[in-house]
């Protein structure tokens, strides 16, 4: 099995979707099968990385064979590996769902030229976005992170505009500008870092970074940019229109995966690379904004009349939880648990939100609208989708044994152990508000009204329904496979050396 010990596997999650994206643009026929093959190949490569990680510990890869300060390094540590896994699994679900979604639209609706065109461009853009996300998670270079961020922004904005509706194009425009603004702010931060240290490699920066005015400014700029991209309250204004107006698979990608990318960078910078320069006040401020996001996002979600907007605002709220974790890391002995908590919440939210948008999209296509008021009894015609929605909702509320529950439990424990119990109240309040907006919809879907207002179910492929259920159940059972995740997260030391080069 020497081939599986090759160090080259670490670039596979970047190269494989990239080749797929290029092929889909060039070839144009059988794009779905290319994408499916790519998804599976990507899963294989990520699984191989998992195996290598368990055998050898964190991996490091020198691009072009150049050592760090000069060249660019890729690094695979526990959180990055989990993010790759998350993207791989969600990605398969999204790929399958997108196929069902587009073929339904092409076969069942008018204007199928437009839908064919949307599908044609969806695949290359989606695979490119996938490349970008994988590259982002693996990157070990602060400037390379900027490039991957831009790669993500451009492909995500193009995807967001794909539906061709005026509203979605306005939203995509705004999204693109906001992303660009965020990236520029991040880049200016990188410039300051380079000015101060003359180094771009993350590991080396971690070793030499000391608190100082330059780093403080750099960190502020990078943080502002990334917060804008992660849509932390009150910088979330661009997110609801962009996510709600996109096509359903795109909404799933944007809410489930894309916002996690910038959050991942932010979290890595704050708690791994520049951990020594972070002040308690900054942590509290971020936590406060997170709390604001939880409350405000949930209240907005409760107010919405449209299903997709509700799901979108719940993204705003759920992202808030990730930031509530920030002040909880301040205590030394529990920061590992907070890491675990955040990883769990990110993964659970990704799966659940992807599933939720897929379900919302299927409902929209079947019913022709998504006014929550008029969704009574959908369970009759779309049982699997309704189940998927409900299970995903259970995740968002954070009921056991979902991954979201594990995250909330760990955050609560951290908050109460460190005596910062005011955060725990926000977490609890957020769960309650989440249950309000989740059950507002679920109770409608599962209603069995007397008068038959149930629409005739148009024939649709199982690909439209099952991927959502599949992802929702994964999110639900995430808690039960927690030991393996903490095993991965706790592996921070290099166990053995991987043979350099490859065995190819």
């Amino acid at each position, binding site marked *: 099995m020497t081939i599986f010990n090759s160090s080259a596997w670490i670039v596979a999650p970047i190269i494989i979707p990239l080749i797929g994206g290029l092929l889909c643009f060039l070839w144009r026929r059988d794009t779905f099968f290319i994408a499916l093959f790519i998804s599976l190949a990507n899963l294989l490569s990520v699984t191989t990385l998992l195996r290598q990680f368990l055998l050898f510990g964190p991996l490091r890869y020198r691009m072009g064979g150049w050592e760090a300060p000069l060249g660019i390094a890729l690094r695979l540590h526990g959180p990055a590996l989990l993010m790759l896994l998350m993207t791989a699994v969600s990605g398969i679900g999204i790929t399958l769902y997108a196929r069902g979604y587009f073929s339904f639209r092409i076969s069942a609706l008018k204007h199928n030229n437009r839908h064919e065109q949307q599908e044609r461009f969806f695949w290359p853009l989606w695979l490119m976005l996938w490349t970008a996300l994988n590259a982002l998670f693996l990157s070990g270079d602060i400037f390379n992170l900027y490039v991957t961020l831009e790669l993500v922004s*451009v492909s995500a904005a193009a995807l967001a505009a794909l539906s061709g509706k005026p509203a979605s194009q306005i939203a995509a*425009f705004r999204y693109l500008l906001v992303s660009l603004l965020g990236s520029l702010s991040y*880049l200016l931060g990188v410039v300051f870092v*380079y000015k101060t240290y003359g180094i*771009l490699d993350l590991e080396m920066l971690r070793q030499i970074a000391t608190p100082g005015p330059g780093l403080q400014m750099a960190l502020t700029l990078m943080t502002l940019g990334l917060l804008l991209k992660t849509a932390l309250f009150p910088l979330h204004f661009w997110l609801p229109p962009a996510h709600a107006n996109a096509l*359903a698979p795109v909404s799933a990608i944007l809410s489930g995966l894309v916002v996690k990318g910038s959050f991942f960078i932010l979290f890595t910078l704050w708690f791994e690379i520049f951990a020594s320069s972070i002040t308690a006040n900054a942590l509290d401020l971020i936590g406060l904004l997170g709390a604001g996001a939880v409350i405000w996002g949930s209240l907005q979600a409760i107010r919405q009349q449209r299903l997709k907007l509700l799901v979108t605002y719940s993204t705003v709220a759920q992202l808030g939880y990730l930031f509530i974790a920030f002040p909880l890391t301040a205590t030394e002995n529990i920061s590992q648990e907070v890491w675990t908590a955040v990883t769990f919440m990110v993964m659970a939210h990704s799966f659940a939100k992807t599933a939720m948008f897929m379900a919302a999209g299927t409902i*929209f296509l079947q019913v022709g609208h998504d006014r929550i008021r008029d969704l009574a009894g959908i369970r009759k015609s779309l049982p699997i989708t309704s189940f998927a929605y409900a299970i995903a909702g259970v995740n968002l509320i954070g009921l056991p044994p979902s991954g979201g529950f594990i995250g909330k439990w760990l955050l609560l424990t951290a908050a109460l152990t460190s005596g910062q119990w005011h955060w725990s109240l926000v977490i609890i309040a957020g769960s309650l508000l989440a249950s309000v907006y989740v059950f507002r919809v679920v109770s409608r879907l599962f209603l069995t009204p007397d008068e038959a207002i149930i629409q005739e179910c148009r024939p649709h492929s199982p690909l439209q329904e099952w991927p959502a259920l599949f992802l929702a159940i994964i999110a639900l059972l995430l808690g039960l496979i927690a030991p393996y995740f903490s095993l991965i997260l706790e592996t921070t030391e290099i166990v053995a050396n991987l043979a350099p080069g490859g065995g190819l």
Partner: protein
Amino acid sequence: MLTNNLYNLCGLLLFGMGLFALFACSHLLRKILAVNIMSSGVFLVLIATAYRPLGAGEIDPVPHAMVLTGIVVSVSVTALALILACRVQETSNHSLSQSERNTNDGDSEE
């Protein structure tokens, strides 16, 4: 160090001006221009880090490469933004400032 400082100062000023214009202008094209000005500012500051006073060693090529990358990125994004702006203009006669409609027809048929 004078050149260096001048570059830095101009770059940061451009960044600030662009930032203000981005929020102050409602016109789509102006917003795009504002972001471009901002990125020019950042590139100026970045390229200034390559500067070495005479005799203090070689000029650093890494910022050059970074700026080049940044410019290409900026060109791509600008192109996409322009086309988006065109489409917005064509289809709805909207300008961004008055486009707060949170309509939700991403999946609808027409």
